[in-house]
């Protein structure tokens, strides 16, 4: 077994070894359901589609994903287990990718546990299954993007609270940059090219595209570059700071 799979397996198991996973999953699933049925008016819309569910996810992820990511490296440095990990025959890249993929898999499990929503929609009407699939793909990629940012800030700070706050702010900036109100405000003092750039770097733009069932290369590439970039930055920061 490649060393990185050892880290992946250990990390994923560790989520479920403590109440952490269960608390997170319950809170996430509760709010995902509450926001869909209560705030988005799922029944009032009288349409069997998952749009009221997916539209909440960016806001939910802004808080829930950094909560998962904050412990990734901050806890290792605080407990001292980072010294154990990086004196085993494993490279920093393997360790970072192993932990990142384990956290992403955990978020994938959280998304998979929203299956009752899919069953509800399928029971009540005849939803477009392609839209549901692309919506989940977009959600999973967005979770990965937020997680990569959280992973970086977790490596930056030994303190989990600081890592959480910095990740929330970074993720919020990237979500709200694409909101119509933000773009309208920016267009009052920025040239159109820069407003378009702000829209382009936002999660919202690319997530909405996937929600509409359109899988474009630029949207997949956006998430891939975002994840690779922030995870690579995490690797660099860890190499500098692991012994401090």
């Amino acid at each position: 077994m490649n060393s990185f799979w050892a880290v992946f397996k250990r990390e994923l198991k560790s989520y479920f070894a403590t109440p952490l996973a269960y608390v997170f999953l319950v809170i996430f699933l509760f709010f995902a359901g509450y926001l869909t049925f209560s705030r988005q008016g799922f029944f009032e819309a009288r349409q069997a589609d998952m749009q009221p569910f997916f539209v909440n996810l960016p806001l939910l992820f802004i808080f829930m994903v950094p909560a998962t990511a904050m412990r990734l490296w901050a806890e290792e440095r605080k407990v001292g287990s980072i010294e154990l990990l990086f004196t085993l025959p494993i490279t920093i890249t393997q360790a970072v990718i192993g932990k990142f993929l384990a956290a992403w898999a955990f978020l994938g499990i959280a998304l998979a546990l929203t299956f009752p929503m899919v069953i509800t929609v399928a029971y009540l009407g005849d939803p477009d299954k392609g839209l549901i699939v692309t919506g989940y793909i977009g959600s999973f990629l967005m979770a990965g993007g937020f997680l990569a940012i959280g992973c970086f800030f977790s490596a930056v700070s030994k303190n989990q609270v600081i890592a959480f706050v910095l990740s929330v702010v970074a993720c919020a900036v990237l979500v709200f940059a694409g909101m119509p109100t933000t773009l309208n405000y920016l267009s009052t003092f920025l040239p159109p090219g820069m407003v378009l750039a702000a829209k382009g770097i936002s999660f919202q733009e690319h997530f909405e595209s996937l929600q509409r069932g359109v899988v474009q290369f630029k949207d997949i590439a956006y998430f891939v570059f975002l994840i690779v970039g922030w995870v690579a930055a995490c690797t660099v920061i860890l190499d500098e700071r692991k012994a401090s």
Partner: protein
Amino acid sequence: MIEVKELRRRFGPVVAVDGISFSVGKGQVLGLLGPNGAGKTTAMRMLACYIRPDSGTASVCGHDILQNPIEVRRSLGYLAENSPAYPEMTVGGFLNFICDVRQIKGKDRKTALDRIVPMCSIESVYHQTIETLSKGYKRRVGLAQALIHDPQVLILDEPTDGLDPNQKHDVRKLITEMGKDKCIVVSTHILEEVEAICSRTIIIARGKVLVDSTPKQLKEKHHASLDEIFRTITKMKTSVKCAV
């Protein structure tokens, strides 16, 4: 098996290790003796490839610490100060994780565990979580992970620190037993430990090697106890390297 040449490392304005050189062969137990802040832990971390030296080089079992850090880590067993581990894991789960990373599989793994668990006397706590263990047992689990792959080189950072007299005796007995056919570097500031288990002694202070000798030769030369020799040498205003 260990060759160290002019290793240097600073942390900002603080010079932690200032050009240390020594070598250790098979069947030797080298004691790195020095006051707190002398550079013992930093030197060991460089040997274990946890941190990179600013200059100088070292090799472990013929592998260079800068060119082949993974091979170095594969060849040695390292016990860090405070025996870091993953608190939520059981002892058995933790040792299996170490085997996963070190790619000890199948029958080899069973043999390794059957050998190491009684050797480190951790049978009674095998299914207990690490956070519930006493300091002595945590240290033994740390030793177990350092020994599980039967390395030829061991680097142990203050292995008996904080243990009660009985536990100290057990760990020292284990080190003496292993020292017969392995190359071991032990850091300590407990002088009786040096006399009990070390065949050679290096006294480090302020990042420099002050003495490279054996406990017996030191006492014969200075006609004083190791305690007095240590105090005299480490409190000297100018550092003078005395190789005996």
